[in-house]
């Protein structure tokens, strides 16, 4: 593998004896995949560093914000493996945003690991080779005679030198251009169970999160935001200002901010604040959204996303036509840590601190807003109490910066749970209509999907399976504009589209008189032998997860157990699931989900299992319970008493398996979620003969 000069910024010993290699993890290959993150930030590219001091301390700097997907652990694992050191020798540190050292930092979600795999390996392997070269020079032997093990270079005559002792000499060597990577059979860390690098700090309650930020002179604030689409006319500030512990009440951009000495003082002041709003257009309600769905389904102006063959002619000639409509509401991300951010805006400099997945775009947005150059804006990253996509938006960063610039004080803006749940950037609401035509043998000859989203952009994924296996296809999207703000939500679009599609295919299989698994396999066979149009997935990898899940869950071989199948490709990974449902006291209960995942190489087995199980629980909980209602532009419910989150007594057994085929790894934060609603709904149907077309099911 070739290393180009521009991948490296070699910094020779800025301070004596410390070897720091600047490494551009994301340089050469352009990101082909449009992941969530790129939609928000543009093509991904970032840098990171590893350092080795002359005492042998190895520090890996993780430039990506950690949202609980395990990236802060998984990335350094890859570097440590190729560097050939013991995991126990390594320290991992979160790097703050530094546009001089790093060109771009972002949490790349499921796309991140794939894009950085080569770069991470290169970061480790390069330094390993430089250590070997330094030792070879010292011992006057050929580098080919040297080996490494656990942070030492070993020479042909039994010589042994630690990386620490070689660090300074190595740092003066040219960066090697030819590298060899470890054979995966020699992996010592990759594929094992590596515990989260922050565990110790978490279990002892260290102040790691944005909400825990404390800075000298800092004040607290909460912001009252208007109903969606409304304008602030007036508010009653005088009495509120006089309340104990309240410092200021100010208004900007239709919002009212209450600034105070502590949280409780502000909470009480809020209860006394009244705001008057007006609006030009009628404010949105559930009915508005239903009308927009109806209109979108009838619209002549749908955008054609994909067209193969002639759908209209084929459906007209079909022996049987199946049609079904699916719908999901707006839902909130509800990370356990509500939004918050710290900002200290001075005349010519800004300090931002807190939980954001996109520090650089945040910095840029603040720069644009306040007309302060980016190099005067410092960003410190905190740990994030979950994100699920919510912290890809910058609204809460901008608010904090704007407020600080008005009150001229360092301020931590905190959202209450109610603010977080009613404050927007939701998973968009969507309605899908599927249509399939079967010939007299039960083969699918025509397939159509129309998606109508509310602020969803393209609500379809037009190249998704079974597209590619069917002659006549029409995929259309309609986007209706709403005042309700939306943003990416874990597995954007596919978090519901996956359910709708997998539930529909189950219905199609039933009408065609086919086993749902056999029908999928037959379609994939067609993709291999007679593909139609552009294919974005690999049919062989699809087949493998399907076959494995059927075997592991003993598909249709368990008497008395009702099973439902689904399989979905998203975010570059393949996940097949079989859910099991038992009927208890007349009610269906999901007892088990078996999942087989192909995410290529499994970097950290512990983290991978966490992600798959977490995504299935997330998918199941939101499919069953989550819904926001709208009345006059206001969302409800606003807290966990009425907006139900799945709990520990409601979870099924989850049996998570990985194909682990050594292909460059793809991330896991998202792909196990989209198939979940489908496998569960199909199992519920098997048990009750009742199909679900809407989320939430309950």
């Amino acid at each position, binding site marked *: 593998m070739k290393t180009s000069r521009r991948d490296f910024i070699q910094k020779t010993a800025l301070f004596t004896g410390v070897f720091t290699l600047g490494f551009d993890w994301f340089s050469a290959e352009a990101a082909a995949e449009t992941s969530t993150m790129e939609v928000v930030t543009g093509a991904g590219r970032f840098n990171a560093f590893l350092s080795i001091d002359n005492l042998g301390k190895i520090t890996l700097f993780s430039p990506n914000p*950690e949202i*609980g*997907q*395990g990236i802060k652990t998984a990335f350094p694992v890859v570097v440590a493996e190729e560097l050939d050191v013991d995991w126990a020798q390594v320290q991992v540190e979160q790097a703050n945003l530094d546009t001089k050292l790093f060109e771009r930092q972002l949490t790349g979600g499921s796309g991140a690991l794939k894009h950085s795999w080569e770069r991470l390996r290169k970061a480790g392997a390069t330094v390993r080779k430089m250590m070997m070269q330094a030792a070879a020079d010292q011992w006057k032997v050929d580098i080919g005679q040297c080996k490494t093990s656990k942070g030492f270079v070993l020479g042909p005559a039994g010589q042994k030198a630690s990386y620490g002792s070689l660090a300074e000499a190595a740092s003066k060597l040219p960066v090697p251009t030819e590298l060899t990577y470890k054979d995966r059979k020699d992996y010592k860390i990759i594929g094992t169970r590596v*515990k*989260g690098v*922050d*565990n*110790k700090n*978490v*279990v*002892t*309650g*260290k*102040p*790691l*999160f944005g*909400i*825990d930020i*404390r800075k000298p002179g800092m004040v*607290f604030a909460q912001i009252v935001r208007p109903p969606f689409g409304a304008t602030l006319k007036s508010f009653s500030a005088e009495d509120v200002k006089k309340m*104990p512990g309240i410092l200021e009440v100010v208004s900007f951009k239709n919002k009212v901010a209450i600034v105070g000495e*502590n*949280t*409780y*003082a502000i909470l009480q002041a809020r209860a006394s604040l009244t705001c008057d709003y007006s609006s030009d257009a009628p404010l949105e309600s559930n009915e508005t959204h239903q009308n927009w769905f109806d209109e979108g389904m009838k619209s002549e102006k749908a955008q054609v996303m994909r067209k193969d063959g002639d759908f209209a002619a084929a459906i007209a000639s079909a022996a049987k036509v199946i049609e079904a409509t699916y719908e999901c509401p707006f839902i909130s991300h*509800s*990370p*356990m*840590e*509500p939004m918050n951010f710290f900002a200290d805006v001075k005349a010519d400099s800004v300090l931002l601190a807190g939980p954001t997945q996109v520090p650089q775009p945040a910095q840029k947005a603040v720069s644009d807003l306040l007309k302060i150059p980016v190099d005067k804006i410092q960003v410190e990253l905190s*740990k*994030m*109490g*979950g*994100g*699920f996509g919510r912290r890809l938006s910058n609204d809460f960063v901008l608010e904090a910066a704007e407020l600080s610039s008005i009150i001229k004080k360092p301020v931590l803006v905190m959202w*209450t*749970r109610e603010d977080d749940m009613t404050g927007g950037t939701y998973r968009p609401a969507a309605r899908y209509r599927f249509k399939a035509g079967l010939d007299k043998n039960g083969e699918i000859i025509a397939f159509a999907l129309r998606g109508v989203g509310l602020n969803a952009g393209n609500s379809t994924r037009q190249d998704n399976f079974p597209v590619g296996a069917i002659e006549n296809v029409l995929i259309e999207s309609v986007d209706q504009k709403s005042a309700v703000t939306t943003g990416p939500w874990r597995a954007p679009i596919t978090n519901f589209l996956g359910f709708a599609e997998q539930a529909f295919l189950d219905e199609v299989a039933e009408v065609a008189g086919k086993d749902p698994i056999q029908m999928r396999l037959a379609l994939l066979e067609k993709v291999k032998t007679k593909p139609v149009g552009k294919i974005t997935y690999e049919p062989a990898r699809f087949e493998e997860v399907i076959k494995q899940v059927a075997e592991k869950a003993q598909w249709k071989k368990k008497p008395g157990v009702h099973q439902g199948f689904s399989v979905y490709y998203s975010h570059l990974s393949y996940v097949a699931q079989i859910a099991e449902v038992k009927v208890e006291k007349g009610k269906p209960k999901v007892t088990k989900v078996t999942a087989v995942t192909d995410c290529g190489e499994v970097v950290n087995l*512990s*983290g991978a299992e*966490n992600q798959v*199980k*977490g*995504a*299935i*629980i*997330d998918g199941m*909980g939101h499919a069953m319970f989550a819904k926001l209602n709208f009345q006059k532009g206001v969302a409800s419910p606003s*807290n*966990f*008493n009425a907006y139900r*989150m*799945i*709990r*520990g*007594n*409601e*979870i099924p057994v*989850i049996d998570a398996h990985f194909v682990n085929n050594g292909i460059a790894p793809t991330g896991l934060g998202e792909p196990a979620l989209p198939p979940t609603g489908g496998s569960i709904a199909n199992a519920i149907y098997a048990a009750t003969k009742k199909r679900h077309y809407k989320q939430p099911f309950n």
Partner: protein
Amino acid sequence: MAINCTVNKKKVSLDIDPNTPLLWALRDHLSLLGTKYGCGIAQCGACTVWVNGEPTRSCVLPISAVSNAQITTIEGLDSAGKHPVQVAWDELDVPQCGYCQAGQIMTAAGLLKKNPHPTDQEIVDGMSGNICRCGTYHRIQEAVKLASKKTKK
């Protein structure tokens, strides 16, 4: 009038609005930031601390109610992280984002204090008041079991 109580074995005096929920007194006035806010209405368990040894939702408990009480927060459980529950949490790699875990740990440690060897069902029931948005429930339940094994008979 100031409210006196003991927090993590230290005597403290809080001269603030007696209606202040214990959560905000801990976080904003005593700088004990390990206890987390999740809902403020006793629904999620993120704010769980011990009041006289009882796991309690600090977000809805006014400090007027803790006069002379003994309060233990995550910082006071074992600052070195050697409590069996903390050890089990690390060993089984429970945390994802980690935000809910202080509350989970205080609930679990409270459960084991009362019932050192709970059945599986008792663990599920005892822990289901705490929400984990990341879905770490399986490992939470396994870790309580592991901690129970580590707890001396």
